[in-house]
């Protein structure tokens, strides 16, 4: 493991220069976003300063709020890490949303089959593995549709997202409905012994947090210091040339899809086993789609992605208070996130263009 970190040191150092240039860029985008959001708030007739204050206090104002932020951060970061694999390979894995849902479904299935046995810990661990497998298999469907049938991964993913949402609803209202009634509140809650252990006071699972952090580190290592990462970038950079260099683009793309699906599936598994303790209709909470924005804003950088994910998690959490305190709709956080990405992309393309003409 020591050599692993020694090797990772180099990309880190090389990344430092780019990171400094990046900081200026991020500062510029934040300015643009703040200006734009202020404008939106003014148009909506809300006091901008109060709104920003609510967002900050609502997310970082207390330990329990922070723990709520972290609960959002975990699935968002996992899905974002997964998307890094597909983006590097030049794939737009829109299907990540469905992969989160299928991870949740597979975990639920495993928990129902395992039941509250004396080996509950074992069942939970297996259920997490099942979640990863579920997401990965679902990603494989999109991958095969692309490589074998020539369906663009965006359309394949979008279609599969609808299928998986339908499947979740059908399970909740059909085979897995609560005894007596089928309800929007989801399936029956699992036996408490099957839950991922969490810190009572904060309702936060250290195991889930640890695995999300590990996912970031493993992703960084795989992408920057292994043959897999290199092959992904090669195929993403030029599929035709990659063939001449002896790579098989379809196999590499499939590997990227498996990694992305596995991590998205793990996100879904934590939603089921650590947060809701059952399958609910909105089990993915849109974190898959949000992760797409995270990765775009992080400009495909492994280290920036968790930071952006944290920021987005703060926005989501802080916005919960808006309707109560300022009678603003909480969808404002979506407006901020969306305009943030657009502003960042704009600032980035302006700065690359001027860099190019300066040489």
């Amino acid at each position, binding site marked *: 493991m020591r050599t692993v970190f020694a090797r990772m040191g*180099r990309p880190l150092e090389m990344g430092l220069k780019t990171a400094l240039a990046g900081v200026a860029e991020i500062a510029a985008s934040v300015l643009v976003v703040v200006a734009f959001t202020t404008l939106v708030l003014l148009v909506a007739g809300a006091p901008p300063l109060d709104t920003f204050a609510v967002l900050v206090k609502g997310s970082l104002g207390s330990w329990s709020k922070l723990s709520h932020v972290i609960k959002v951060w975990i699935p968002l970061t996992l899905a974002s890490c997964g998307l890094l694999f597909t983006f590097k390979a030049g794939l737009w894995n829109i299907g990540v949303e469905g992969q989160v849902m299928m991870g949740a479904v597979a975990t639920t299935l495993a928990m129902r089959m395992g039941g509250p046995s004396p080996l509950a810990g074992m069942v939970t661990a297996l259920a997490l593995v099942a979640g990863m497998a579920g997401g990965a298999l679902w990603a494989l469907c999109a991958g095969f549709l692309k490589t074998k049938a020539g369906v663009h991964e965006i359309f394949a993913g979008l279609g599969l997202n609808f299928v998986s949402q339908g499947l979740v609803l059908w399970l909740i209202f059909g085979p897995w409905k609560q005894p007596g009634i089928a309800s929007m509140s989801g399936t029956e809650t699992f036996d408490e012994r099957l839950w991922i252990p969490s810190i009572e006071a904060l309702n936060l699972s250290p195991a889930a947090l640890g695995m999300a952090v590990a996912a970031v580190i493993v992703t960084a290592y795989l992408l920057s*210091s292994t*043959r897999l990462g*290199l092959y992904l970038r090669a195929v993403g950079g030029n599929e035709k040339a990659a063939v*001449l260099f002896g790579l098989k683009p379809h196999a590499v793309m499939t590997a990227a899809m498996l990694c992305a699906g596995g991590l998205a599936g793990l996100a879904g598994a934590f939603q089921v086993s650590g947060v809701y303790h059952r399958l609910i209709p909105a089990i993915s909470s849109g974190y898959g789609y949000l992760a797409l924005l995270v990765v775009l804003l992080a400009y495909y950088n492994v280290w920036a992605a968790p930071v952006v994910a944290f920021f987005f998690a703060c926005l989501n959490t802080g916005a919960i208070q808006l309707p109560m305190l300022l009678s603003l709709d909480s969808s404002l956080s979506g407006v901020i996130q969306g305009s943030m990405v657009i502003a960042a992309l704009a600032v980035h393309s302006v700065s690359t263009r001027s860099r190019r003409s300066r*040489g």
Partner: protein
Amino acid sequence: MTIALRSIHKHYGDIRANDGIDLVLRPSTVHGILGENGAGKSTLMKILSGYVRKTSGTILVDSEEVDFKNPAEAASHGIGMLYQDPLDFPPLTVLENFMAGQRMKAWPDRSLFRKRLAGLCREMGFDLDPETPVVRLTVGERQQLELARHLAAGRRVLILDEPTTGISSLQKDVLFSALRRLSSGGATVVLVSHKLEDVETLCDEVTVLKKGRVSGSAVRPFSTGALLEMMFGREPAPPLRKGHEPGAQALFLEGVHAHGGRTGLAQCTVKVNRGEVVGLAGLEGSGQDVFLRVAAGLTRPTRGRVHVSRKDMTGRDHHAFKTMGVAFQPAARLEEGLIAGLSVAEHCAILERSSFSLDLDASASLAQERIQSFQVAARPESPVESLSGGNQQRLLLSFLPDDPVLLLLENPTRGLDRESVRWVWERLDAIASNGAAIVFSSSEIDEILMVSDRVLVFFEGRIIHDVRPEDTDALMLGKAIAGRV
């Protein structure tokens, strides 16, 4: 319009692409910019056309100082450039490309533009069908279209970067007479080339660049020896052809038909033996491209069989061909041959395919070896897209396997100067002597005649001639290529 460049510098990190260049371009003159690959010609012209910003120096247009921030600003001063790789919109038609970038109303009158295009074509002797999609044009035709577009937009300074690369000699004649007409009409024409012949035929005045500086200049009539000395410091000897002993069969195409390219490939039966160097002659896109890709397993034939070393490989993929010792290198270096975004060292790392975790130090030192032995002006960590065309070509060649059975090379010396071409062929000759078959395409008839043991002439997707170079000459080949057998 007179343009004066004073002490132009352009530095890319430690590389001084332009290192203090002075140059005056006058109207009614065709001015040649001559120099070997990497001399800094393209960089200087991109600065003049606003595509690249200079590090320092002054540009005067009719004694007024200008500093172009983008091509549009240069265009508003009447300066237009035809880049080495055409910048058009392939899926659109000729007419749509012609209209793009011109001032027009929201609902333009197509017939007006059609008339304008037809008029320009007549005047310049171009032959362009307005409704053909640009993807189907040859490089020469795309060039004519670009030129027409610049003229319609009123450009009076026309810069052409290596325009004779990849076009037929017929198209070259058309282009040159159009340029002469423009220059006698008062335009300032700049011809960038590494080919002495182009400059000697067309230019009134020439400036020679070497390593980012002006190494000399001359006016018509030129002395070839003097120009060569300015380019290289000494006159290079022509490449030598060593006859090779043909060995066992390397490639056998049997009645092959295939789709692809402009013409596809029809009724192709050819045997190539190890040790043989076979040149594919023909207008660009007459089937040579499809031939090479079928032989590499990249394009599947619709009919017929492909054998490598007497093994039937029909229908197998490129990886199977690769394990049989077949290597292919495409002409479009950055589009098909190299991976933009990856460094030289990372390209080497892909080829090594050793352990799962990457050893970047090892790849870097390996890259350094290749760079040195193939004289590539780059560092291991340079991204490949930052290399000049000639250096990209050398890099590609450095990736060839050590002990191949069959090398398939599409325009392997495109964009290289004479000395580099000679150097490349010395390398390839050595590989052929070691028992590899080499099949290559080229738009330079002289090159084909000089290095090949056999020449296949392509016309409209068919092989119409299979001759030895000693039984033919440039004139006969030129006629055959144009379909006048």
